């Protein structure tokens, strides 16, 4: 029994889940009515639903990021790609049908991903530097598309993607779930998982085993780009406008954090999609909690930082050992 418990605590997803549970418990006491869900016009409303809805852009990007990080890479351009995709969709809808606009938005995600992938794999530029290019240039491109203005979107089909309801639930949840399922399929029912983890752990040995790392690298960056583009559609559809400057600002950092909290190592190798989901939920719940508890907005970032530091520390086995030692000593002294 004890052994089993130990085994569970060793699972990568254990500590992120504990952190999320603690946070939710805190909410239960601090915010009465946090877990209450109301039905209005056949739609579900409540804090939990709100978090589920709001987390989706971050969650989708984090899933893409997980695969990039699994191969020992990083993509810091996702926020810019998100802005480009939203801007392009908004701009195109003024002239063409919503479907063409959607295709173009996803298409631009593919192009951005390919660009990053080729820079990293063919030209062997370090991932941080390679994606930094698009991070800086990307917002400029988005501004060119919007002409420096916030474009408003007035298309009910498009708006539905960000703020519509299906079966009583916000529609973005279904998009996120679909992407998660596709990625799980890629990991568990194709050799993608094996190849990625192999490349992320030992690139040379993977080459010797016949894996084509360059193709895999381009593939994961492309997937990540598409994820960012889809997130861009959801964000712009949700607020019915495309803001080249502020849409998805700093989201790359939250996404990387979600991946790391979820147990995937920045050194590459094993990756955990379920963990990433928990990580993304944790970050979103934390933001929502901080705001709704009424903490002074000026210190919100500090509170967030402290919590994140704590979570990361508890993920480290060394820290847990130290912590246990320390607490044990204290007990024995008293």
């Amino acid at each position, binding site marked *: 029994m004890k052994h089993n418990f130990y085994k569970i605590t060793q699972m990568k997803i254990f500590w992120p889940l504990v952190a999320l549970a603690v946070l939710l418990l805190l909410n239960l006491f601090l915010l009465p009515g946090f877990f209450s869900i109301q039905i209005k016009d056949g739609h579900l409303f409540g804090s939990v639903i709100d978090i589920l809805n709001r987390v989706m852009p971050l969650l989708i990007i984090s899933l893409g990021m997980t695969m990039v990080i699994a191969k020992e890479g990083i993509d810091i351009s996702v926020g810019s790609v998100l802005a480009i995709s939203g801007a392009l969709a908004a701009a195109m809808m003024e002239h063409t049908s919503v479907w063409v606009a959607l295709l173009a938005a996803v298409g631009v995600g593919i192009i951005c991903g390919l660009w990053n992938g080729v820079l990293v794999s063919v030209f062997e530029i370090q991932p941080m530097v390679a994606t930094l290019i698009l991070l800086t240039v990307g917002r400029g491109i988005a501004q060119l598309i919007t002409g420096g203005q916030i474009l408003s979107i007035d298309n009910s089909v498009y708006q539905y993607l960000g703020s519509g309801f299906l079966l009583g639930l916000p529609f973005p949840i279904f998009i996120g779930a679909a992407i998660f399922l596709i990625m799980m399929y890629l990991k568990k029912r194709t050799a*993608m998982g094996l190849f990625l983890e192999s490349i992320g752990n030992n690139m040379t*040995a993977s080459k010797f085993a016949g894996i084509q790392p360059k193709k895999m690298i381009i593939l994961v960056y492309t997937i990540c780009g598409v994820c960012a583009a889809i997130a861009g559609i959801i964000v712009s559809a949700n607020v019915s406008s495309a803001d080249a400057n502020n849409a998805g600002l700093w989201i790359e950092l939250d996404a990387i954090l979600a991946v790391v909290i979820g147990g995937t190592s920045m050194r590459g190798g094993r990756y955990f999609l379920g963990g990433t989901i928990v990580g993304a939920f944790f970050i979103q719940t934390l933001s929502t909690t901080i705001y709704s508890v009424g903490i002074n907005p000026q210190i919100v970032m500090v509170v967030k930082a402290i919590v994140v530091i704590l979570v990361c520390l508890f993920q480290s086995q060394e820290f847990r050992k130290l912590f246990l030692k320390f607490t044990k000593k204290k007990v024995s002294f008293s």
Partner: protein
Amino acid sequence: MSSAILLRAEGISKSFPGVKALSNVNFSLRRGEIHSLMGENGAGKSTLIKVLTGVHEKDEGSFYLEGKPISPVSPQDAQRLGISTVYQEINLCENLSVAENIFIGREPKKRGRIDWKEMNCRAERILSERLKINIDVTKILSSYSTAIQQMVAIARAVDISSGVLILDEPTSSLDKNEVKQLFEVMTKLKSEGMGIVFISHFLDQIYEITDRITILRNGEQIGEYVTKEISRSQLVSKMIGREWGKDSNQENKNTRKEVQQVFVSAQNLGRRGMISPLDFTLRKGEILGLAGLLGSGRTEFAKVLFGIEKADQGVLTIDHQQIRNMTPKAAIDKGFSFCPEDRKVEGIVNDLSIRENIILGLQTKRGLFKYIPMNEQREIAQKYIELLNIKTPNMEERIDNLSGGNQQKVILARWLATAPKLLILDEPTRGIDVGSKAEIRKLILDLASQGISILFISAELEEMVACCDRVIVLRDRKKIGELDRTEMSESRIMDMIAEGVPVDET
């Protein structure tokens, strides 16, 4: 005589999940002796060293250094007590100077700043007085040969603590002269009264340098012997636990039938800076050896053949079909497989399980979207774990928990699972124990008799002569000759490598 005992281990036991790595092992090291720890891979040598130096915690037993009980908790702690270890892979910083490497972390200081003059001076003194080597200590480490780097590691170790020195396979990457140099240093240190634990797989070296041998097998101590009093065959049979028969000189290769059908051939295949253009043919079911010293182009040719490195000239023909633009994937699709020389870097994928490491080759052959279902994966892994006698509690174990010999078998399993037509084996028996060596050699012969072509690279000529049907001899990245079974002998190959007497080809 008890005063002469420097280090004593009593009743050491250590278990890992599923494996009893050491059980009740005794070991004693005397002052001024070189003592070898011998055993197959997985016998417990490394574990004993790791427990002794505080890398792992022991379950039972105790260590005594000069009669006082010690229990080091980390390698640094062990070093403070007087036990230092030099590992096979040199743990130094290649981009720092020799002196910096010797004094890193304990630099002599003057007024809070590093006293460079003093440091270089002392480094020079240590190297020249204790190890009898005179080199410029201000040059960066990577400008010296592996042997010198090893010496620097030893210098650092003996300067920190001069009681016990553990050398874990220090010779595996050294050439003959370098080994000689190392042995001189070891003899010198021994005469100063140090106790040296020496681990090596080379029997010649063991007999040349050691005074005593402790043999381990499956985590148990078999016994302690005076080197002069134990014969090679006794030693080997004690290590592998069976009588060492005459099958080391396999003549059974003659039982295989000659097949004339050519599988792979190359004309003028080469790559600038790696291997000069050469011709070669390999028939079905033939074992072709590539003999030559390290750096002679043997590994380079294998890499060109497998498409890891692109050939920049020449023609490669497989099954009468000309192949352009070879890549590892294309090679695998054509039935090639390659067990690389550097197992840790080019072979195993650490993070992955044994099962995943085994199916990796077959999965790449099938492609990204033709996923091998889990139960098929398990069947394949189980089949090869049994076939190759891979010692592991279960197939989901991480591969880096296995011993070197077993890791090598996993890589072999990876390629056998792809049903290869050509198996390129680059030093498949290097750094692994005698028992696994014999098993792998036998496997090679079996595979060839099933019609698989084998390109065999080994530094051990005896092994080549025993296994190969034909040998291509390489020197300085050039093919200098070819010997068939009737002409082949160790001395003949050695002569060709050494003097480069070209052999007339008809």
